[in-house]
């Protein structure tokens, strides 16, 4: 494999990591809840897609349906389980959020692993490799990268240009100020949780284009998501995007040259180095 091909693989995986990290970042930024069940949304969404596909529904339609449903699950989850968490303030809220989402993640994880032990989600794209100037590129990789990049750009435009997107940023920057402008933080927290779940689901679908999602992977995805968010600066959306891409590239090169198990070590060392060098996140303080 040529370095350029590795780089493309790394960027693709990195954009998928960014999708995960951005969700964690936004949910934490708005409500101080570190969503330790985030990776389970990835798995649930792929299982939903598989169920539709298994019933003979068109693949693309199945994927769209599974993304819609994962968003609704996100809304239900936030409304039913996080409202006692949001009643608390400060440290108590952070701790309660961790307990609540961690407990849920364990429950979902054991359920999924026991109920769907053999499920494998991967999407095949019916095109052969493209060869350009000696580089062989898989169309599935290109497709995954393009969709992830589009989703992240769309999110950026939403946050930057629309009234609701701006309102989301105001809650993250100063919640009292947001309320005094007429913004209702509670409904935006629900919205962003649903959006986070959809982006996690999309990450799972796209991961299925470059690899295989199994029911056991939820905890791994959660870990990746949190680590990417931390390296990105916890509260910075753009930081999470950049750190996802950097870590994706690190992951691609280290797993190619050192193998899968060592690559995780290198991955985490890279995170530690980023945090040591830029404690405020890869982009510094900018939101």
């Amino acid at each position, binding site marked *: 494999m040529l370095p350029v091909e590795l780089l493309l693989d790394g960027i693709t995986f990195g954009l998928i990591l960014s999708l995960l990290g951005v969700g964690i970042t936004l949910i934490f930024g708005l409500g101080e809840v570190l969503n330790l069940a985030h990776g389970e949304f990835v798995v649930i969404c792929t299982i939903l897609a598989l169920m539709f596909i298994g019933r003979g529904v068109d693949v693309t339609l199945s994927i769209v349906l599974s993304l819609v449903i994962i968003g609704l699950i996100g809304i239900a989850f936030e409304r039913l389980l996080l409202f006692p968490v949001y009643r608390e303030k400060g440290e108590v809220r952070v701790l309660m959020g961790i307990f609540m989402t961690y407990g849920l993640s364990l429950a979902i994880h054991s359920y999924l692993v026991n109920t769907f032990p053999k499920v494998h989600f991967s999407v095949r794209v019916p095109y052969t490799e493209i060869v350009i100037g000696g580089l062989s590129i898989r169309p599935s990789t290109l497709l995954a990268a393009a969709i992830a990049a589009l989703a992240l750009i769309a999110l950026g435009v939403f946050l930057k240009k629309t*009234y609701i997107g*701006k*309102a989301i*940023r*105001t809650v993250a*920057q*100063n919640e*009292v*100020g*947001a*309320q*005094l*402008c*007429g*913004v*209702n933080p509670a409904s935006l927290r629900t919205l962003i949780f649903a959006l986070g779940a959809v982006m996690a689901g999309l990450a799972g679908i796209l991961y299925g284009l470059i690899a295989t999602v199994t029911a056991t992977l939820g905890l791994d995805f959660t870990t990746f998501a949190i680590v990417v968010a931390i390296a990105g600066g916890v509260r910075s959306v753009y930081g999470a995007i950049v750190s996802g891409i950097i870590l994706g590239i690190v992951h691609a090169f280290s797993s190619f040259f050192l193998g899968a198990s060592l690559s995780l070590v290198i991955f985490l060392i890279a995170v530690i180095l980023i945090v040591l060098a830029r404690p405020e996140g890869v982009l510094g303080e*900018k*939101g």
Partner: protein
Amino acid sequence: MSNEVLSVKNVYASYGDFLVLKNVSLEVREGEIVLILGANGAGKTTLLKTISGLLRPVKGQIYFLNRRIDGLSPHEIVKMGISYVPAERALFPLMSVMENLEMGAYIARARKEKEERLQFIFQLFPVLKERRDQLAGTLSGGEQQMLAIARALMASPKLLMLDEPSFGLAPKLLPKLFKAIKQINLEGTAVLMVEQNVRQTLNIADRAYVLENGSIVLEGPCDKIRDDPLIKRAYLGI
């Protein structure tokens, strides 16, 4: 009285077990500037917080334009027409001046009047127009205060509540600030304010209430309050 904008009736409010407001009643009428005086810890900020919905009263009622508002959320109270500028300003530091102002006009009613309000605000505080693309977090203290007031005005409030608007401002800016507040008031917005610069604010205000240990101990038109021996000694240093 029919021209009451705000009417606070026998309100009690507390932080946890600590009762801060005890049986507070007050009114703001149409077109008035009303001043709340009192020492630190008397409950002035708590009173504004309670009216704005950031704090729920333990007992008592609050009416705004004859509709009961105690128990509503802050964002609902903003929609009804009360804008509150807290002492800490609560700006969005990573957003530009312009974005802060736009968010001030977040509520549906205000979005339609956004352009007119901007004109009024830029004429009131021309410096905000110069700094429109600068991040709010990088403004000076005085500019931040102007932005906080301007952002509150973007919602076209019928009642503007200001907590210590002069706090942290250079003394030479004060006459300008009070002139701006008077101008806002003349545009038809009633003002309820807490202010330490008693002498200057008594000149622009219509009436005043004096809070002591969470209760109102004195109220009246400003010229009467100014002559009260208690006020002279405690606030005017005469």
